[in-house]
């Protein structure tokens, strides 16, 4: 197995980005959210990071990037609706 080919694969770069933002959101929750008080900045940041990560996995790992339009529309619609509702309920009841 030629490891170099896999290390240089664009999918590996996507994984590196996913891992980097995971560590970032861990730091945000650990430091910014340490007090466990209501904190809209932390919440909006980690939810947006989660939305971007989800889209990256759907687009590149699940290969929806190359899939028919109906699937692109359905998955993107699910993602936007979900995060809009999550943020809506967070702020709506805050």
């Amino acid at each position: 197995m030629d490891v170099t080919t896999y290390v240089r694969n664009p999918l590996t770069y996507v994984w590196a980005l996913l891992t980097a933002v995971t560590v970032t959101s861990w730091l945000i929750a650990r430091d910014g959210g340490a007090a466990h008080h209501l904190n809209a900045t932390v919440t909006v940041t980690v939810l947006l990071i989660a939305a971007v990560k989800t889209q990256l996995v759907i687009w590149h790992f699940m290969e929806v990037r190359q899939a028919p339009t109906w699937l692109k529309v359905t998955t993107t619609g699910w993602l936007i609706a979900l995060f809009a509702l999550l943020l809506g309920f967070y702020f709506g009841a805050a």
Partner: protein
Amino acid sequence: MTEVAEESSTGATDAGRTAAARSHLPGDPSMWFFVIGDLVIFGVYFVVYMYYRGQDHDAFLQSQAQLNLTIGTLNTVVLLTSSLFVALGTAAARGGRTADATRLFGLALVCGAVFPLLKLVEYIPKVIAGVTPGTNLFFMYYYVMTGLHLCHVLLGLVILCFVIRNLRGPAMPRISFVETGATYWHMVDILWLVLFALLYLMR
């Protein structure tokens, strides 16, 4: 040998060209209907959780403080890494590099198997400390959502074993089956990404 080497070095460009030329639905269409259905069902859980959280932010925040953020983060990296191996393995299988694909799916299986183990490390001290689904609404959602997700992980691990068996078999591997298994495994990954943000990260 030269052919194989050429194939592996141009594999990525070929995939790009194919994508530009025509769209491709990876795996069995029925798996995609299952995946979309599952995403919608979990989506409803996530939104209902957020609704109830909004009714009593303080109680949810105090309960969240009892979760192990480090294990949650480790499990996220574990699933992302496992997903990477599955994605690379799928591309290798499609490019005819079956031996590589088998190894990559094997690595995905090993990574994926770490997830339930870490989950046990998380669950057991909680249950011993008397924190159960009956403790409060947060822990009810915590156990139900992570428990359902864990069932998906366990089924995913079984599916990965079948994909490996398919790759190791004497016949040419069925690429559609590899893609179907991969699609399911990536879905398990994205459900966790949202759960991780909702249960561990948000404030």
